[in-house]
């Protein structure tokens, strides 16, 4: 089994290096290219965890996390896009758009804004064959089909969505949109509880996106520290820079070792919290090590700094994880007032 994971990791890494890395700067400016989406689909990354009889690749969780981690190294936007598309398919595997979604020719996403927006969103209303209301800050909100929740149930909405994109800090490979819903073309997919549970089960996947981001930007810092010299020595030879790089990389390796070696809620929650921290730290270190070059788009470093912060906001509410961790640490609830 371990060998199979290694083969998968090498395959995804090779794909990311060959197909994502060269267009990663363009992704930041113009969004993830349709052609790339189709190539990603062609690799079987969309529907990765669906069983073979449902048309998927039948990967287990570790296999799926490898895909998210390795793609996040080159582009956190792409990795998060894969995650959201697969979340849609997990919730609604029998959609009649399945073939088009799984071939990468149309986008499908899940509105998870109610779980990261602090301000209360207006509930969507579903009456008389109409789904109406407004949602703000939906990731990839211009997708053809969006799963939304009205607080009780979740629906896949296929038309009657007016999305307006706003400027946003990170994950610029996808838009962040405010959407007005006025749709008669929607289908009930299940209960809101189903989405909530699915998200809670996603801690390991989110951890792997954070981890890939951290490792991707740190590897670039390592490479740069070997070739850039100051005061007649390569940067890597200076103790503060050496310590910073080694500290980040050893933490990344520890989290990875733990993440892929342990199942269960506690292990996943722990990894998500720690991977988020290291993504924030590593993206800052890497930019700093690159100096002025790190600050400009052309070097492909600043995006990790933006993306780490944006991801930490979208997936950074640790209340669920703290609850899980508290059960192990305290044996009961804690940190709740």
């Amino acid at each position, binding site marked *: 089994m371990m060998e199979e994971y290694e083969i998968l990791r090498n395959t995804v890494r090779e794909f990311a290096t060959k197909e994502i890395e060269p267009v990663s700067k363009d992704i930041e400016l113009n969004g993830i290219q349709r052609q790339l989406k189709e190539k990603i689909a062609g690799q079987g990354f969309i529907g990765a965890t669906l069983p073979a009889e449902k048309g998927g690749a039948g990967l287990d969780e570790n296999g799926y996390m490898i895909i998210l981690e390795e793609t996040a190294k080159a582009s956190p936007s792409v990795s998060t896009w894969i995650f959201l598309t697969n979340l849609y398919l997990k919730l609604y595997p029998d959609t009649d758009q399945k073939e088009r979604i799984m071939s990468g020719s149309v986008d499908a996403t899940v509105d998870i*804004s109610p779980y*990261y*927006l*602090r*301000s209360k969103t207006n509930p969507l209303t579903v009456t008389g064959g109409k789904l109406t209301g407004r949602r703000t*800050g939906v990731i990839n909100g211009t997708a053809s089909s969006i799963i939304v929740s009205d607080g009780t149930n979740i629906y896949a909405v296929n038309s009657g969505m007016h999305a307006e994109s*706003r*400027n*946003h*800090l990170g994950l610029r490979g996808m838009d*962040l949109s405010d959407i007005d819903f006025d749709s008669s073309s929607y289908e009930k997919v299940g209960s809101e509880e189903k989405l909530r549970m699915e998200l809670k089960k996603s801690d390991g996947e989110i951890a792997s996106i954070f981890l890939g981001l951290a490792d991707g930007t740190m590897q670039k810092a390592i490479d740069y520290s070997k070739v850039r010299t*100051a*005061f*007649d020595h390569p940067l890597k030879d200076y103790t*503060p*820079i050496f310590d910073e790089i080694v500290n980040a990389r050893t933490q990344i390796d520890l989290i990875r070792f733990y993440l892929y070696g342990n199942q269960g809620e506690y292990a996943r929650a722990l990894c998500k919290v720690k991977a988020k921290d290291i993504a*924030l730290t590593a993206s*800052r270190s890497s*930019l*700093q090590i690159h*100096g*002025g070059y*790190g*600050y*400009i*788009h*052309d070097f492909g470093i*600043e995006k990790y*700094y*933006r993306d780490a*912060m*944006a991801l*930490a*906001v*979208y997936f*950074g*509410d640790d209340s669920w994880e703290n609850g899980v961790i508290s059960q192990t640490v305290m044996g009961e609830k804690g*940190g709740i*007032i």
Partner: protein
Amino acid sequence: MNFELDESQKEFRKKVEEFARREFTEEAASKYDLQEKYPDEVVRKMLSEGVFDYSNPWNILVATETFCKYDAGMGISMLVPFFGNEVIALFGNDEQKKKYLSRVFSGQAKMGLAVTEPGGGSDVANIKTTAVKEGDHYILNGSKMFITNGDIADFFVLLARTSVEKKKHQGMSVFIVERNFEGFKSNKIHGKLGVRATDTAELTLENVKVPEENLVGEPGRGFYYIMTFFDISRAYVAAQALGIAEGILERAVNILQKDGPLTSQPERVQFTIADMATRIEAAKLLTYEAASFIFNFNPNPAVTSMAKAYAAETAVYVSRKAMEITGVDGLTSSMERSFRDAKIMEIWEGTSEIEKLVIARMLKVGDTQ
């Protein structure tokens, strides 16, 4: 010891605040940020309204802090037309001051400082641009990187190597190089993470003929002139970072207060706010202390570097914590821009790493055993 600005400085701050509130609207700030455009029209307005007073360095510091609180990109743009002027003011001759500085201070010209090169930022002594004397002029060749005002300044105070000495930091000289000198080219750098209203460019010099009278001070002393300049300008950069941090704290608190008083937030959030505010206060004291040493002609480079490094670190810390506690509300507000602006503070005018080296080198301690 007095920790308050005097009345006239407070009055001045009010004036600057009024201008910033009126001109640095969200619409304007986001436009200049998005389009990477220098807000020349706003600078002209500021000059024509006489908001600015160059005669008092405290006013420059207060204006820097206040402007950056509202928007760093536009704020820095207001004060940047005379960036580097201290080099001429301190080491230039009367002719140079009359010919160049007077035009800058009257708003007729903009200037810039050109030190950093593609192969060396922190390591100033390692620059490769050369200046070779030929008759009554120098011939300059080389390139400069990340030069603020690079595409808009009329002239630059520029560091070049005039001789090869045993010690690397000797043999460098400062020149005033005009944009219209033949062989001078600038190439605007696009895609900065933040402070996108400010102009940044790469400069190339190809056999640029610079008249001898544009040599600033003595030949071979350039490195020391530039270091002296940094010991002053770093206090202003500390004020930039301080202003950014103050602006973010205010925005974050105002977002949270929409849900009720701060005390109704979880203690985790209240502690974060307390930490942010404490660090800002410490950064402010360091910044004002460094400025006070400089403005009393008794600079203390260790304190100046402490102020710059600590204020920069504070700006970045505050920008990240604010995002964590305000979530998507912060992410989609003007705080998003401040978050991007803050990071440059740890890089320009001496990276935090360089500041720490200066602190360690310049620190004076007693003889306690």
